[in-house]
């Protein structure tokens, strides 16, 4: 069993190393094949691990694979351990499965890019890190995987490193993620202090006997773990990096910033459930923040005009649902939504990539329109993804999202409020999703669309940075000179097709009253949970919930249709009437400005103070000049004796001699 764990990690790592070592010797195409094959290998191993795991009896489905002592000394027991259980294998399947398809898509989408080999090396490294994260068997390995995905994300966000916008977005993402890492490490310290182990299995076994309910250090530790989760999963207020991360190539947005990495926070909370169940105060904070994020992100998505950023905010919003779910002990529902979301969100990003290619690299919704006829396959995929995201039957998103909401109501108390927020979010999701689709695909074709209908892909003579309109460095071969759309690339079509099938059909895994595949599969992991088994809404109420969810989503879609297809002057009128609200949303609730004010500027001020004032006045002024000043003053006094007058020296000598002689004469008596 444990060898599958190592193989799952080994394939992507070998892919990275192989590509890095042969980047000059092999043609770029070969690296695409190597990269994709490596991830496919990891997926196959995950499936084999799944089968093996299912063949074990339910109470033995928790296998720890021990590699070597990593940092095992003076009481710290950090070994390189992997934990294979239904939860980690479930995550491996999602990560490796979606990754394989996105690698496949990238072989075509990135084909004319100069950095093709580098892209696949980074992408493989990312998958390795993500799998390390989900397979980690102790806190230290988890932190390593956690930081590695952050590093890979940084590298891929600033993949087009000649753009200052990209490097800025990269460093922002990295630093916020380091804040998350710090939270995770500090949280680990709080837990380690009492549990005396870093190993997951041992730590969870000891939790209930070590900590009382809502023990102070436990809550502090869990809250700090949540900081890590929020930073990685772009939850308020540590979310500002995610929209900027859209500077990366579109497959990166699909893989890292939609399907896999950003869901790590969800996985973290689910993995740490014994801790959070013993510290309900921390779990409640998680649930509330998740709900707040889902609402805030959804409102911003209503006004953003950058195609990829709309999807990015919708990702934040959907992860808000998942965080809310796992923080409310609805583990299977949260993870089920993670699964369906990975499919339909990756699909949406891929479709968006195709549209952006058709626009010659531009991402601005204001400049798009009428691509329905020009890009029929992309349009189909986008609608499938959009319907799944909005939650319309029978698409997968409805079942997963409404299961979360139903469980919130079932949990009762203030969680019912969260459920209401969830329904509100459903409505907003319908609006912003279809606002994006209608504006990009419906109405009159823009010149690029018209050109494409005539069979020619639009090209811009001078490549420009889509974010700023700044002219690109002409010698740079990335983004490549050619663009690729799904309609002409079989690889892209296959990848999107497969995801579309998933987005449509995955709902069958968890139809209320009919199937509960995810729930049953994850049961051994959550066997000790206080809530998991009992939290089971009746079939009837579930179906009522589904109906309400559908109504909300359809209402949202209808509103979008009315505003952006039927009566197209209305949005401008509403915007004029609600100018302050629009400004508030368009400025993203002023979170960037807030962080700037509270964190960035004081730090910069302190740096300037240290460099200009403290270093000059205290270190060089008082300490260096002060010390040398004392020496100089002393030497000036002594130096006055050295007059150069020979006779003065002689007099001094005689005087001194006389004084000594007199002293001895007197003392002798």
């Amino acid at each position, binding site marked *: 069993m444990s060898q599958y764990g190592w193989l799952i990690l080994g394939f992507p790592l070998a892919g990275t190393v192989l590509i890095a070592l042969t980047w000059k010797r092999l043609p770029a195409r070969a690296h695409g094949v190597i990269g994709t094959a490596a991830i496919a290998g990891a997926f196959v191993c995950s499936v084999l691990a799944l089968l093996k795991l299912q063949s074990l009896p339910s109470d033995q489905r928790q296998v720890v694979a021990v590699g070597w002592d990593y940092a095992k000394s003076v009481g710290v027991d950090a070994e390189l351990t992997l934990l294979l259980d239904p939860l980690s294998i479930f995550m491996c399947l999602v990560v490796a499965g979606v990754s394989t398809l996105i690698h496949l898509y990238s072989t075509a989408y990135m084909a004319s890019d100069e950095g093709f080999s580098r892209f696949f090396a980074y992408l493989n490294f990312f998958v390795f890190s993500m799998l390390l994260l989900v397979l980690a068997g102790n806190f230290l390995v988890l932190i390593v995987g956690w930081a590695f995905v952050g590093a890979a994300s940084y590298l891929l966000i600033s993949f087009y490193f000649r753009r200052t916008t990209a490097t800025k977005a990269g460093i922002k993402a990295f630093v916020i993620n380091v804040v998350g890492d710090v939270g995770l490490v500090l949280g680990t310290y709080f837990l380690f202090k009492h549990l005396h182990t870093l190993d997951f299995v041992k730590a969870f076994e000891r939790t209930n006997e070590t900590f009382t309910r809502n023990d102070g250090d436990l809550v502090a530790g869990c809250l700090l773990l949540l900081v890590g989760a929020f930073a990685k999963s772009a939850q308020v207020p540590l979310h500002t990096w995610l929209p900027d991360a859209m500077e990366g190539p579109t497959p990166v947005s699909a893989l890292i910033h939609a399907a896999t990495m950003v869901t790590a926070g969800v996985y973290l909370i689910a993995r740490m459930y014994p801790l959070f169940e013993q510290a309900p105060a921390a779990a409640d904070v998680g649930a509330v923040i998740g709900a707040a994020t889902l609402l805030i992100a959804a409102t911003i998505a209503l006004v953003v005009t950058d195609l990829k950023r709309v999807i990015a905010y919708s990702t934040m919003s959907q992860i808000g649902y998942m965080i809310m779910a796992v923080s409310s002990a609805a583990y299977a529902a949260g993870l089920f939504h993670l699964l369906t979301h990975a499919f339909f969100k990756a699909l949406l990003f891929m479709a968006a990539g195709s549209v952006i290619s058709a626009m010659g690299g531009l991402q601005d919704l204001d400049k798009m329109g009428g691509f329905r006829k020009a890009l029929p396959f992309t349009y189909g995929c986008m609608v499938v993804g959009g319907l799944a995201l909005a939650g319309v039957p029978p698409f997968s998103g409805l079942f997963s999202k409404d299961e979360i909401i139903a469980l919130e109501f079932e949990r009762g108390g203030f969680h019912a409020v969260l459920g209401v927020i969830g329904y509100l979010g459903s409505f907003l999701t319908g609006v912003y999703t279809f606002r994006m689709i209608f504006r990009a695909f419906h109405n009159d074709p823009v010149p690029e669309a018209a050109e494409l209908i005539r069979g020619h892909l639009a090209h811009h003579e001078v490549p420009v940075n889509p974010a700023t309109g700044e002219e690109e460095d002409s010698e740079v071969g990335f983004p490549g000179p050619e663009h690729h759309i799904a309609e002409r690339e079989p690889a892209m079509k296959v990848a999107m097709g497969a995801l579309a099938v998933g987005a449509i059909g995955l709902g069958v895994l968890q139809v209320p009253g009919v199937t509960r595949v995810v729930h049953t599969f994850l049961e051994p992991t959550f066997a000790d949970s206080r809530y998991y088994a009992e939290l089971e809404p009746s079939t009837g109420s579930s179906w009522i919930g589904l109906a309400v969810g559908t109504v909300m989503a359809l209402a949202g879609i209808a509103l979008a249709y009315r505003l952006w297809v039927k009566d197209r002057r209305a949005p401008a009128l509403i915007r004029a009437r609600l100018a302050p609200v629009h400004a508030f949303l368009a400025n993203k609730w002023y979170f960037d400005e807030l962080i700037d004010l509270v964190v960035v500027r004081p730090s910069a001020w302190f740096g300037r103070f240290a460099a200009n004032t403290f270093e000059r006045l205290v270190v060089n002024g008082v300490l260096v000049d002060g010390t040398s000043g004392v020496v100089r003053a002393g030497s000036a006094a002594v*130096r*006055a*004796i*050295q*007059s*150069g*007058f*020979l*006779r003065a020296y*002689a*007099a001094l000598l*005689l005087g001194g001699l006389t004084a000594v002689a007199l002293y001895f004469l007197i003392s002798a008596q």
Partner: protein
Amino acid sequence: MSTTWYLLVSAVVFCIGAGGILVRRSPLVILLCLELMLNAANLALVAFSRANGNQDGQIFAVIVMVVAACEVAVGLGLIVAIYRRKLPVDVDELRELQG
């Protein structure tokens, strides 16, 4: 004759020499005064030697004379060199040792 008188003469000569060094500015005269002081010391040494009845002090005096001769040679050489380089022959003007 008691040693006191020798010592008295020696002290007087020493003081004349020391006073000369302090008041005169010509290096030549200072050198002369230095010789006076050395010879005052010689006188005292010989006197003690006689009083103690051994020859140690006289040997010291001979050595001092040799050293004095060397010193005069070096000193006069310096003075001649100063004169040749057209520097002022005045110790108050020659104060390169000032700190």
